[in-house]
């Protein structure tokens, strides 16, 4: 239980409280001791002086009488008087014997047996009168209750403090434990594979709640990633399955039928093509993993993006021609950024390739590379194909998602994932917008903004800023 942080915290506070109490009580005690005792000693000395005066004036018999009279008329029972001879035999006074103090003049504080009044703490003053010894004292009966009350009060305060501290510690512990327990239950459910669970949160902003919210955020991210990985595994499995299945049946058939050698060679060529497809999928995945690891940042050089884009446009121009698609390119002056030329070229090629896949016959594709006023370079590829619905827009940028429209199209299905990874490597965001709607088609405009090195943009922030990007002449011209 000491291990419980709540209890040990409470105990810590108890110790702190005790310390404060002691700090408060100690000076009080010393003040009590100092002033009151000094006052009483003074009184005793004055008393002794008066008795000494009587002895000087009336002799030892006069003093004896005075003392007897004093004791007989004594009202308050706290006065101690004793006169003895040199051998400390009592001559007068209310003590039966000389107490356990030396017969040397001075002040003493001892426990003294007061006969029927029992043991009493007493303050004594011893004076020497020639051959006689005089003892004047006061017992502490008057002050004892006060003293007792002081100690009782202190002990009471300490006890209350201790018990309250312990109680509060235990209650806090219970409250904490119940919340920790609910967190533990949720987490163990998650450990057992059900990622749907979330930690309970309240409206308040206390520490545990804040922590729970953070953990929930993390769980959201993990669920997304796990979902992504599951998707990947599924799509890898699916993508590999098809060529592998074909390969298998091809080879099996070959072994079964044993056709003429010419046919056999055709089949073998087919088998090699199947294997090549499998290799291509693996290559794409490896590439993605490589970019994702961010290792290529070291290879950053000054790259003219417009140059890369015009090469890519030129590369795809014959393919666009075949589909009667108008593929245009537009740029405004130097668009040099720090980047990886190979990856940027691949990203551009993937974007144009995608647009070519989805743009209709006689469609339009506009590629624009523009330097914005703030120095950022914006790459935009727009087509007037079927586009992507808004809910799907966020998903296609997610890792490994295959849009419905992309099913059945050639390719590995990792095209946009790669573009997204390249964008991320360049500290940039990949954004998708509807193109200018033409003949009933939604169209798609993919925008990738690369910020100059001196002012790296945060993708999250820039997402808002570029939500409505300046109209891109090259794109607008081809999509309207």
């Amino acid at each position, binding site marked *: 239980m000491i291990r419980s942080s709540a209890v040990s915290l409470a105990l810590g506070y108890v110790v702190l409280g005790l310390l404060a109490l002691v700090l408060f009580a100690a000076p009080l005690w010393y003040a009590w001791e100092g002033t009151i005792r000094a006052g009483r000693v003074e009184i005793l000395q004055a008393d002794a002086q008066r008795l000494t005066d009587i002895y000087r004036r009336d002799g030892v018999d006069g003093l004896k009488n005075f003392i007897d009279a004093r004791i007989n008329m004594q009202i308050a029972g706290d006065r101690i008087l004793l006169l003895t001879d040199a051998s400390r035999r009592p001559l007068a006074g209310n003590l039966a014997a000389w107490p356990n103090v030396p017969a040397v003049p001075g002040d003493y504080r001892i426990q003294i047996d007061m006969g029927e009044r029992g043991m009493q703490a007493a303050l004594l003053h011893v004076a020497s009168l020639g051959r006689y010894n005089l003892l004047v004292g006061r017992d502490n009966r008057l002050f004892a209750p006060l003293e007792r009350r002081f100690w009782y009060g202190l002990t009471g305060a300490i006890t209350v403090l201790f018990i309250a501290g312990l109680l509060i510690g235990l209650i806090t512990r219970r409250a904490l434990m119940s919340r920790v327990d609910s967190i533990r239950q949720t987490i163990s459910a998650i450990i057992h594979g059900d990622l749907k669970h979330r930690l309970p949160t309240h409206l308040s902003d206390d520490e545990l709640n804040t922590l729970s919210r953070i953990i929930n955020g993390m769980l959201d991210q993990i669920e997304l990633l796990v979902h992504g990985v599951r998707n990947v595994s599924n799509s890898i499995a699916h993508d590999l399955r098809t060529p592998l299945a074909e390969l298998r049946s091809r080879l099996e058939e070959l072994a079964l039928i044993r056709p003429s050698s010419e046919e056999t060679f055709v089949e073998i*060529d087919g088998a*090699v093509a199947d*294997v*090549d497809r499998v*290799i*291509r999928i693996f*290559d*794409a995945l*490896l*590439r993605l993993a*490589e970019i994702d690891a961010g*290792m*290529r940042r*070291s*290879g950053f050089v000054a790259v003219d993006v417009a140059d890369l884009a015009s*090469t890519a446009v*030129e*590369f*795809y121009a*014959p*393919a666009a021609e*075949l589909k009667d698609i108008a593929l245009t390119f537009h740029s405004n002056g130097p668009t040099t950024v720090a980047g990886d030329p*190979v*990856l940027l*070229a*691949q990203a551009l*090629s*993937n974007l144009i*390739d995608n647009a070519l896949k989805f743009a209709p016959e006689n469609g339009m594709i506009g590629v624009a590379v523009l330097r914005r006023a703030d120095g950022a370079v914006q790459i935009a590829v727009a087509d007037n194909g079927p586009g992507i619905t808004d809910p799907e827009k966020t998903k296609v940028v997610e890792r490994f998602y295959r849009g419905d429209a992309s099913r059945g199209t*050639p*390719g*590995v299905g990792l095209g946009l994932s790669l573009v997204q990874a390249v964008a991320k490597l360049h500290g940039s965001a990949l954004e998708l917008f509807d193109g200018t709607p033409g003949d009933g088609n939604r169209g798609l405009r993919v925008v990738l903004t690369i910020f100059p090195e001196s002012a790296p943009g945060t993708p999250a922030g820039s997402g808002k800023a570029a939500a409505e990007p300046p109209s891109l002449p090259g794109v607008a011209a081809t999509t309207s």
Partner: protein
Amino acid sequence: MKILLVEDNERVSQFVIKGLQEAGHTTDHAGNGRDGMFLAASEPYDVIIMDRMLPGDIDGLAIIEVLRKAGKSTPILILSALSEVDDRIRGLRSGGDDYLTKPFAFGELLARLDALHRRAHGVNHEIPLTVGNLHLDPMTRKVSRGDRQITLQPREFKLLEYLMRHADQVVTRTMLLENVWDYHFDPQTNVVDVHISKLRQKIDAEFERPLLRTVRNAGYMVTAAE
């Protein structure tokens, strides 16, 4: 060509040696780095095929570095299962001349070996190229076939120039992507074929004998042979 193959995988070695033999080349084989280093340093080869990862304490890149330091300029093609761009750059930086990732098509390997061999014999970028009656002048950038001038786009010119520099050799799609467009990735499309057929339209369409031929499962070849 006399070729040295440094490769530890028995199956890959047999496949490559047999293929090279069929293509008319003689091949020496070393199964580990030590033998490879010894052969490469002592025998004259036209091209060396070097596996990157070898058993023992000497790996492919180390051999290449030693050979280059010793002044050997034999063209070297690095064979590797490491496909990352950085691995490729590291391989070329160590002194390799070309880089091919496993698994590879044999046609690709053969075409690259031919290209390496030819490059090693020096390329004069100023001498006009001729294949049959097709002429290309890199200086004036003029192309003609017979007595007819042919107008090519800059990229088409580059494509044809590359093909003609490797006349009578198979040139793969990947080689074209790398050398004509500087694309060191697989665009996963058949656009190269489209470019070739456009080029073919311009140089072959109206002539009886086609010069730009498709080599099945390998790539293309410009040749005047029958």
